[in-house]
């Protein structure tokens, strides 16, 4: 907790305060922190524990139960490849494999430069346009392995196109 910066502490305190009238606010608190910071490390959980009285083991249990929560920071661009049934039967695994190959990371991992995180998603409800992927929430329809390169390039270009 000591190395949690004070403004982060203030913000977390404010989040906890925001839900103080809720009967069981833990999920809401964690969702707010996840949205704000992109991850919920143990030291933040400890701070939430000290503010709410919920044991850390319980908070950690909740954080590691739901795939929406992350213990580690995610990349600047989170690429989610839908592996829902509709996408899977239309070959989304090959799209995932292509991303893995080009980025050199597996699902759930982040590139060393912190730019990309690759996630396997369980259906984003875009079955009509399968196989679908999403990058920071933006949905790309009817993906193929060949389109993977251009998607990655799009974001590299955004970063100044150095590569």
């Amino acid at each position, binding site marked *: *907790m000591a190395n949690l910066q004070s403004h982060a502490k203030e913000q977390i305190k404010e989040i906890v305060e925001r839900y103080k009238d809720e009967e069981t606010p833990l999920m809401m608190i964690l969702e707010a922190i996840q949205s704000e910071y992109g991850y919920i490390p*143990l030291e933040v959980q*400890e701070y939430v524990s000290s503010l709410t009285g*919920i044991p*850390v*083991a319980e*908070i*950690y249990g909740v954080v*590691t139960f739901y795939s929406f929560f992350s213990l580690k920071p995610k990349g600047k661009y989170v690429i989610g490849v839908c592996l829902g049934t509709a996408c899977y039967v239309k070959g989304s695994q090959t799209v995932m494999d292509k991303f893995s190959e080009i980025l050199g990371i597996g699902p759930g991992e982040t590139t060393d430069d912190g730019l990309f995180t690759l996630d396997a998603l369980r259906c984003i409800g875009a079955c009509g346009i399968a196989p679908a992927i999403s990058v920071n929430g933006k949905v790309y329809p009817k993906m193929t392995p060949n389109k993977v390169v251009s998607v990655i390039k799009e974001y590299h270009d955004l970063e100044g196109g150095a590569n």
Partner: protein
Amino acid sequence: MALVNIKIEGKAYQVESNLTVLEACRKCGYNIPSLCSFMNGRCSLASCRVCLVEVKGARGLVASCAYPVNEGMEITISSPKAVEARRTSVELILSNHHKDCLQCEKNGRCELLEVSKMVGAREGKYIGTMTPSTKDELAPSIIRDTGKCILCGRCIETCKELQGLGILGFENRGFKTIVSPAQNRSFLNSPCMQCGQCVLVCPTGALMEKSEISKVDEALKAGKYVICQVAPAVRATIAEEFGKKIGTNGTKKMIAALHRLGFYRVFDVNFGADLTIMEEGSELLERIKNKGVLPQITSCSPGWINYMEYYYSDLIPNVSTCKSPHQMQGAITKSYFAKSHDIDPKDIFVVSIMPCVAKKFEKDRPEMEVNGLRDVDAVLTTRELAKLIKRSGINWDKLPEDEEFDQDLLGQYSGAGVIFGVTGGVMEAALRTAYHELTGKEYGPIALEAVRGLAGVREATIDANGIKLKVAIASGMKNAKVLLDQIREGKSDYAFIEIMGCPGGCINGGGQPYVKPMFLPNEDDDILETYREKRASVLYSEDERQVIRQSHNNPDIIKLYKDFLGKPLSEKSEELLHTHYNGSREKYPDIKK
């Protein structure tokens, strides 16, 4: 309670309507195996699925531990469907359990093994990847092994519901689930009080005390003066380890056994308990006299001390500065005893035999040292003592019952010391002496029934010549919290509070023998409700057996003060017998990087 008519295996029974199917079956003479449910056969989890039975009309099989009985219910335990279901659940659990049973410390007391025998699990039925075995051996008290954990959740529930702590929790999901104090780190890096109640309820070897038998072996091998001191509550339970009924007084055989284990001297920590009363009682009277911080809270329970340092460090001024009895006795052994026998205290190795795993942590605390000498060098639990005895080939049943503790300076003790092992005992012992201090007379009937009993929180008022001493007693942290919050809020009008870390006190300590699970033939149907009472009665009867009933009347204590310490709270006493607490213990030292 209203009764309902049920049928089990086609036979009619009447049972109370608030029972679960599992409880009802047990009452009617059917043992159904269970792992996730414990204590009383009801369970909020229903997760292990080894207690499945058929209930007519229910959808699918029913987890008997969580299913209430109702009028007209028809239960079948022995149908092929139910038998196979229970067996498969166990076989699946076994397929993810590291089965090094022959060397496992839990061998002989493993509930999983008993359950798999009961259901007739077949060898190697299912094989596949297993949860990796990561062992937490960092903490001095408790070892945790994920490879043996079957995720029954009993430890989690115990820590949260019984102790109000919630150190342990499930983490991750699905097959990756483990039980840990978050991020699979050590107990040592969490605000765990090390009471070991989780160890008591673990059905497998996933949670165990950290054994120190090898340390004792090494000291014996090195030719040290290995002095053994045994806590009061051990005698109330040790016989259970040799198949005796709960509530069997094992004092005499235990003494005989200890004499046969190669110790230089065999002492009773009751002596240390008497000494504690002298110091702690004097401290209390000082506080009352000088308007010091009240209420004073006892400090004998190292689990409670850990808890206090983590969660109520603002109450440090209330906590007695007395070391716990075995630490006091260790310090006296290495000073007074060593000097009298002209032994270099460096050559003395003090082994405490304790009902407690937190004592292992306590004896390692940096404060528990005088002039570079550790007060106590090793702590063995009651269970470890039993192993030591069995290992040495001693036949418990043939041990004589006419031997005594060594009568050598630290040998005598009072009945007051004996009752330290049960909740309220320290209070009673202290009041016997305080009453004498305040009135100059011994308290009338000796026994103070007002402070006895096993209720979680109790209070009493003792009138000593017009001075009214209002006292309170709590055991288990969930109960203690009630009293502690009162102090914090400035609403506590007690003079003295006794707190013990484990519910019921040391007789139910984390180092005590495991109580047999209810699915095995047990000595009594209600043993889980009565075992603490039965163990406590051993100590109260031991107290009654003593000629000396008050600490201040112990001749060896009187001699100790006369020849060595001077008087309670003297400079020498402060140096050897008192300690201080760490109010700034970090709860999660390993989070900081």
